[in-house]
């Protein structure tokens, strides 16, 4: 668990982070969102003491971070950044093994862990272990960056716009993988991004920042339904907000049991989003869809009224 209590950071006269308070629960992925220069990176870097905070307190697992030695603290916290920061003169395997090496793990254990991580991040060991960063594509380099951050199996992971420099397709692929990884590993992650769609797709909780302050925090749907002010609303895409909510809600969460009426012929998987269900309705010119499970068996149905009503808390009428 990470707690920030009215944490402040000044650079000269400028206050980069202004008395922000924030709690990130164990196993939670918390996204810091906001326009460029609003203090996201500064906040992140105060947590692993790359930058020291001027005021307030930061606690990790209940202990103030000033009690820890900065270097030892950072070895216990994973860190991944947009530019990857891979050492260009080290191979992929050596880059990934950096922190275990600093922690003086025996060589055999480091090698084993590196292989495990490469497999986990979809980097075939044979093909990639001995490559140098200059030989990798942007997406591959970022996978190595994430593997390096996870190498010593830290409980906490700090990620600063890790996918910000990638093309949209690669970015979405890596976002999906991070979601799967997080479902398995349950790390405590603070994820900085200026891309609201990325934050909505990944985060359990969003923290919207503006000019060094927190403007609003809450779950993705909470924010979409009730943005605190015009700034948050515009970050969320203005009138697109409804569609964005539909894009992060699964059909399975909103479907109703199959009625006795004939099963609709148009169908949609249970894992699809309401957004995708709407697309099918448009395409098939229908207002009702059968919801299918993984084995292509109908397990429920969803109607247009139900989807539209789902925008409000409590859902709509069948």
């Amino acid at each position: 668990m990470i707690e920030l209590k009215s944490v402040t950071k000044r650079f000269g006269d400028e206050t980069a982070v202004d008395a922000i308070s924030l709690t990130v629960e164990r196993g939670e992925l918390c996204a810091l969102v906001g326009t460029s220069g609003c203090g996201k990176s500064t906040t992140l870097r105060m947590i692993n003491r790359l930058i020291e905070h001027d005021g307030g307190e930061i606690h990790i697992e209940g202990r103030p971070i000033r009690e820890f030695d900065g270097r030892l603290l950072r070895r216990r916290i994973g860190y991944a950044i947009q530019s990857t920061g891979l050492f260009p003169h080290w191979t992929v395997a050596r880059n990934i093994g950096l922190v275990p090496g600093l922690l003086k793990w025996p060589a055999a254990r480091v090698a084993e862990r590196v292989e495990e991580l490469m497999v986990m991040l979809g980097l075939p060991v044979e093909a990639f272990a001995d490559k140098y960063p200059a030989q990798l594509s942007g997406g591959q380099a970022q996978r190595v960056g994430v593997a390096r951050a996870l190498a010593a199996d830290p409980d906490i992971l700090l990620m600063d716009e890790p996918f910000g420099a990638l093309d949209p397709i690669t970015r979405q692929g890596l976002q999906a993988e991070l979601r799967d990884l997080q479902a398995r590993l349950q790390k405590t992650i603070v994820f900085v991004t200026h891309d609201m769609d990325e934050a909505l797709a990944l985060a359990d909780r969003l923290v919207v920042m503006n000019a060094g302050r927190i403007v609003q925090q809450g779950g993705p749907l909470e924010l979409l339904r009730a943005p605190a002010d015009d700034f948050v609303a515009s970050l969320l895409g203005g009138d697109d907000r409804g569609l964005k909510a539909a894009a992060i809600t699964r059909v399975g969460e909103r479907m109703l049991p199959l009625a006795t009426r004939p099963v609709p012929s148009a169908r949609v998987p249970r894992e699809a989003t309401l957004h995708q269900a709407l697309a099918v309705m448009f395409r098939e010119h229908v207002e009702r869809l059968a919801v299918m499970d993984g084995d292509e068996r109908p397990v429920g149905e969803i109607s247009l009224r139900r989807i539209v009503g789902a925008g409000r808390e409590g859902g709509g009428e069948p």
Partner: protein
Amino acid sequence: MSRREAPLNRVVLALSLAALACWLWLPLGSIAPNRIVLGTAYSLPEALGWPLTVASCLPLLGLAVMAWRPRRPAYYAALALTLLLLMALPLWLALMAQRHLDPALPQARVGIGAAGWLMLFWLSLLLVELRTRLALAGWQLGLGLVPVLGAWWLTAPGLASLALWQELAGRGEAFAEALLQHLLLVGGAVGTSLVLGAAIALAMRQNPGVERLGFALLNFLQTIPSLALFGLLLAPLAWLSARVDWLAALGVSGIGWAPAFLALLGYSLLPMVRNTFVALSEVDPGVLEAARGMGMGRGQVLRRVRLPLALPVVLEGVRITTVQAIGLTAVAALIGAGGLGTFIFQGLGQAAMDLVLLGALPILAMALVADALLGALARRLNRHTGRTTGATP
């Protein structure tokens, strides 16, 4: 065959024709009855007669023909011809000496003429062009040059009367000593400036005040002409050695190795400090942030990240400094520092061009070798960092 498939190689054509013209019309060499008298120059047909002249031109004509239809096999053939021409180069001089040297004059000597030097020059340019076309590695080219050196070595006995050779024969020990002095001065100055330069660069990075002052001073030093700098050091060093006994015992005085060494050090420091400073400053900030973010300490970041990444650029500084110092040390002979420059200035004084060459040629060779070796080393260190190898998607 269409022109698009085999476009004419203008470089090879021009070089081989230029070589042909020089070879036929300029003097191949000269023969003088002794060291002082100006020799008689012989052009190729005069020296060897027409049959041999024509024979010696055939490979050049061959090269010109290859240039017309340059495909890969043709380039290999051209390379073979160029190497053949290089191998044969001293042979023609030896033949000339054999035919025209008067056995009654033991003092007589053979000078290398413009055709000989220029031929060497054109052939070197041809090698460079062919190497690029065939994408040969340095070691492959080096392998090709082995038979050339072998052939030269075999031809050497026939050239005992070569003036250059005779100048060397009379000065065997002095030459070895001058060579050693030259190497010591260069090595000492470059080595010291590397250590000192790295220390200064590190200090400059710590403190912007030191940075401004340091660069101002070094830039100023660089603008003083070398001879003037030697002169400027004369008085203070003479004063010091007159007052400090152990300095005098070390051989420090207003002239000799001490001012030469200090001047060389002064000139070497700027490129060394500049490259080291730039190398240390230009390490990708993202890499440094990641290094610290992973929990590396300051010392670890310096030793394992900053220095290894800076090393190729530092080496570039060592390369520039070394080549520069090899040349500058020649001037140091003027203040009695020794080295190969001694022969150059002696030769100039006595109007003996071959003695000048005895000093100048090894300096040229040293500079070329140092340049090639240090360049290759830097490229090798650079091979992973993406500065030479392009990123593959």
